[in-house]
């Protein structure tokens, strides 16, 4: 499996499939009752994130609710315009292209980047039969295909995602499908666009535990078959691990808009470098009973701070058990730790003045 990253890139393929460069997404909030003359509240949903995605790559994003996973994911596939920084698709800036400033047509990019949503209930139009929903991408990508041909393709793909008899399923309405089946249809719809990247935003979280593995396996199979990359969002580290490991990709850990650690799943889980990754690891239930025997949480506070006024310095310092005075002032950058593993914590740098700093007392 080729990963269009770094050294093994050749000639014209030197550009990664998607390059996220120092991206920042800030949302302005509606003003409050007496806030007329104040600065508007700004939600810093994503802040200073850089990451590349190659061909046939997998990036699994994990993190707490509200930490900006969805926002980053949507930014990656060009659904959300970054307030700062740039996103390029094969070397062309997506938003410049959209504005018509590059040689590429935006339609090509558009169809190359697709999404599967978390909520199977709302991801399909309740008023359209499955076959109608699935006709749409074919109509868009292959306008000349006849109706009969369209159906053939749809049926075969439905069978491919495990929905047999295809004809029966195709003629149903979404409410006649189970959650897992809806998710399969959503996947089929994305695949019909023949995309380069699919954003799977918590695509399995709403499914029953016993169905999750099945769905992930299906996505992974199709990743190989269709040659697509996945940005896989999950708040569950074990799912992320499963998906990233099988897809030979990376896990990215997000905290309050920052990417705090990226790396191959096994490394990241067996040897987490960021204290927050450890927290996530702690929080992930484990059937190995001793490991799961409730230990004290490796953090000082339960609640996540408000993304409107994120803490200064390292954003995790308010909860970090290892935090020291310097963490309040300085924001650590992602540091390469070899082998694609990067983390944003002073503790990875044995020379940092962190080690001289005083621990924080609450």
């Amino acid at each position: 499996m080729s990963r269009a990253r770094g050294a093994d890139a050749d000639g014209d393929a030197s550009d990664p499939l998607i390059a996220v460069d120092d991206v920042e997404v800030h949302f302005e909030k509606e003003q409050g009752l007496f806030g007329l003359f104040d600065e508007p509240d700004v939600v810093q949903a994503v802040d200073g994130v850089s990451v590349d995605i190659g061909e046939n790559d997998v990036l699994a994003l994990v993190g707490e609710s509200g930490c900006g996973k969805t926002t980053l994911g949507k930014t990656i596939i060009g659904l959300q315009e970054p307030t700062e920084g740039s996103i390029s698709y094969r070397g062309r800036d997506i938003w410049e292209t959209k504005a018509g400033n590059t040689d590429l047509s935006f339609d090509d990019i558009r169809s190359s980047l697709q999404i599967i949503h978390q909520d199977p209930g709302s991801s399909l139009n309740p008023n359209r039969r499955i076959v109608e929903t699935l006709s749409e991408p074919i109509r868009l990508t292959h306008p000349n295909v006849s109706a009969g041909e369209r159906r053939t393709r749809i049926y075969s793909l439905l069978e491919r995602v495990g929905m047999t008899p295809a004809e029966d399923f195709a003629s149903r309405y979404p409410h006649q499908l189970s959650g897992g089946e809806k998710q399969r249809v959503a996947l089929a719809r994305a695949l019909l666009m023949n995309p380069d990247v699919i954003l799977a935003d918590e695509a399995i979280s709403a499914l029953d535990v016993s169905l999750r593995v099945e769905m992930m396996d299906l996505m992974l199979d199709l990743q190989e078959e269709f040659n697509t990359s996945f940005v896989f969002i999950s708040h569950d580290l074990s799912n992320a691990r499963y998906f990233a490991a099988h897809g030979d990709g990376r896990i990215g850990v997000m905290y309050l808009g920052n990417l705090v650690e990226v790396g191959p799943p096994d490394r990241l889980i067996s040897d987490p470098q960021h204290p927050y990754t450890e927290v996530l690891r702690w929080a992930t239930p484990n059937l190995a009973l001793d490991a799961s025997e409730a230990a004290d949480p490796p953090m000082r506070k339960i609640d996540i701070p408000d993304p409107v006024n994120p803490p200064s310095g390292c954003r995790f310092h308010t909860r970090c058990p290892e935090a020291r005075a310097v963490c309040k002032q300085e924001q650590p950058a992602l540091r390469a730790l070899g082998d694609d593993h990067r983390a944003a914590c002073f503790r990875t740098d044995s020379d940092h003045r962190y080690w001289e700093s005083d621990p924080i007392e609450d």
Partner: protein
Amino acid sequence: MGHYYLRRTARAFVTVFLVTSLSFGLIRLLPGGPFTLLRANLLRQGVPASEVDARIASLQNIQPDAPLWRQYLDYMGAAAQGDFGTSISLDEPVAQIIAEAVPWTVFIVLVSTVLIFVFGILLGAIQAYWEGSRFDQLVSGASITLMSVPFYVVAVLALFVFAYQFGWFPTAGTVGPTVEPGLTMEFVTSALNHAALPIFSYTITGIGGQALAMRGNSIQVLGNDYVEVARLRGLSDRRIATRYVARNAILPLYTGFLLLLGFRLGGTVILEQIFSYPGLGYYMWSALESNDYPLMMGTFLVITVALVIGVYIADLTYGLIDPRISRGETDAY
């Protein structure tokens, strides 16, 4: 995006401004211009045609020959000061006529709307509580039937039966002829007595719709977890019914309340005519009959402003009533 309340206030003003401009425009569109009837009246009284124009000018202080923009500015300026000109047919300041008429209309509209609300909600809530019961079916049937009766039909019939046949209620007017205005028992009873039938006509035809809406809302709320939880917490049925179900079922109706208010304000044109009840609608109608355009536009404007104010107040208060609606979120009305 600015302050919600300020924005809302600005919107109310802009609305009034635009409607005023619209009314100015409409006057100019009136067939034959605004002076036709007056001219005809004077002629019928034998005033020589040569004198009629001068007479109109002296009667009404209107300069029909000024350029349009000038007329517009004058009109808007005067309207801003509450001066809607002089009624042609009644030869009195429109503002004065309206000032006397407004309280009555507001009284009828408010009281009937509140009654509709209260009774509709009660009925609907009981129906929802006993969903599917004989009572529920009966009231639903009655509601639908009542909804299909126009209020003016009820008004005509009520006037005939209760006022003329039985003589229980007066047949016209706002208070008895000999009653002095003031906060006396006599005045209040007389006013209520006179308003009873108009209010009745509005109320009886409005309750049905409200009850159905309330019923639907309540059934929906009853299905919510928090009601079940409240029951598990051992709260009394009464507490649950009022604080947990009714309140949450009523809130969405609040916006409907505004629409009701609007429809009802407009409907007074018909209602007050039937009951010879000299409120805004009555004067609007009589102005219409006599092409009295200052009075017509004056009443039109005031009805509009009354509605704008009602909606405005409701918008501002909705946030207080429903904690979920923080500023800016209201799509009230």
